[in-house]
């Protein structure tokens, strides 16, 4: 199956008009690596991910598998935060087949592959339903199947489990871990949940508060899978990441005028 591609970010800067959101980001991601992006809300995690996806023009350079990124491409699958991106006029099966269909893959082969990927995310019973008939967690799984069927070498995920309840999230995290192992693709995963990052990532990248956000620290997580969140190593890493992010969140809030110490007591 698909094998991961490397991702190289060299002096990447991203601006909207005159506002520079991300500045001078350098990051090399190895093929098959699982990298989590953490950072305060609004710092530019989604923006950076969208840039790798090819949705945004950037300063500096972004390469995937050695090729310069200039536009969206099949090598980079994108799982969005909201499952709204499923096409509501197509059934789950048709949604999953979409990528193959527009590339003219024959019907029989399409059906076979769709069957496989729909089964892989546990939606066989719901294949002929429309997205609106599914729960949030099921839709998110459908979205993941729709991306993986194209066998991208890089999967970009923007808080894909953010809107789900804790139980569903846990199940999907385990599923994702399994799928990642199976496909060997490279994953860049945005989250604001430190535990989620600890559970999944090979490396956690913490971003600084914006504007002109950059990389604050890069924390390797050298723990065997499946990981035990209650282990002392995990707790130690959690503490370290929490302190790093805490600092940045505080800075971000101060910039937005939410300084707690200065708040008048009521």
């Amino acid at each position, binding site marked *: 199956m698909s094998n991961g591609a490397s991702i190289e970010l060299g002096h990447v800067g991203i601006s909207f008009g005159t506002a520079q959101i991300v500045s001078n980001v350098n990051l090399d991601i190895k093929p098959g690596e699982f990298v989590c992006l953490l950072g305060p809300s609004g710092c530019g995690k989604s923006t950076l991910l969208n840039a790798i996806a090819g949705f945004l023009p950037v300063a500096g350079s972004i390469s995937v598998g050695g090729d310069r990124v200039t536009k969206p491409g*099949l090598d980079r*699958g994108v799982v969005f935060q909201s499952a709204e*991106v499923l*096409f509501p006029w197509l059934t789950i099966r048709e949604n999953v087949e*979409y990528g193959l269909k*527009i590339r003219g893959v024959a019907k029989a082969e399409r059906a076979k592959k769709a069957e496989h990927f729909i089964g892989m995310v546990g939606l066989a019973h719901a294949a002929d339903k429309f997205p609106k008939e599914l729960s949030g967690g099921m839709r998110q799984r459908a979205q993941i199947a729709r991306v993986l069927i194209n066998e991208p070498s890089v999967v970009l995920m923007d808080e894909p489990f953010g809107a789900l309840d804790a139980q569903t999230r846990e199940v999907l995290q385990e599923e994702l871990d399994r799928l990642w192992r199976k496909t060997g693709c490279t994953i860049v995963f945005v989250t604001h949940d430190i535990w989620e990052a600890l559970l999944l990532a090979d490396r956690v990248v913490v971003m600084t508060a914006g504007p002109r956000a950059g990389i604050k620290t890069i924390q390797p997580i050298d723990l065997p899978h499946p990981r035990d969140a209650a282990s002392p190593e995990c707790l130690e890493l959690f503490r370290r990441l929490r302190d790093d992010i805490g600092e940045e969140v505080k800075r971000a809030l101060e910039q937005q005028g939410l300084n707690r110490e200065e708040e008048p007591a009521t």
Partner: protein
Amino acid sequence: MTDATQQTPTRGARTGFSMGEGMKRVLIGVLSVVIGVLAWHIGAMNTSPLFLPSPWSVAKTTGEMIADGSLFVAIGASAWRIAAGWAAGVIIGVPLGLFMGRFQIVRLLCDPWIEFFRFIPPIAFVTLAVIWLGPGEITKIALIFYCTVFIVTINTIAGVENVNQLRLQAARSMGASKLTEMTTVIFPSAVPFMITGARIAMGNSFLTVVSAEIVSAQTGLGSMIWTARNFGRTDWVFVGIISLGILGYLFDRAFRMATRKWFRRFLF
């Protein structure tokens, strides 16, 4: 009355209401019509037939016009003009709207004209249409086409502009080209808007056909209403108005049934 009440069970079941609920809805509707006709009857008893013909005399006239076939000729003429002009308007308006919504250059080229013409009702063009196209069928159809194409185009543009940007990005990252994007994401997203536009246009086509027929036609409901004046036959006017109302209702019903049957999955 009995006819209407006999229909209720099937209709109630089809629309998903309980039998009682469906029956109640129809009964209230029928009651409203009966009260209206009664009021009309009382009004007619106290005025001259030239001012307000009674429901009974209108019914009799309707019977005569059905018997000699003239009513169906009139209805057929109007229905054909509406159907042809409206269908042509939808067929041209949808792609036009898609292109204008999608390509800014097309949009910029068309915008001043659209902004200008949108305030000019088709009736204003009746004289011109007759001069340019003659007194034939094509004139009436062209006017209905004009009023339809506008509404459908403007609504389709709104639909294109309303397309969910994330869905477009998703399609692109799955390998969609500009053309594929148009046919597989933008078009389906805009379908509900096109349908709304086509439905409003249907209503406007009825307005247009009557004015066009009043000015330049020997057949059709508009012409029938207008010639009634020369013969002092107010009852013909009533037959024409009632036929228009029923025809419009049937067209709208058929349109809604067709869209529900063929475009159901797009009406999310």
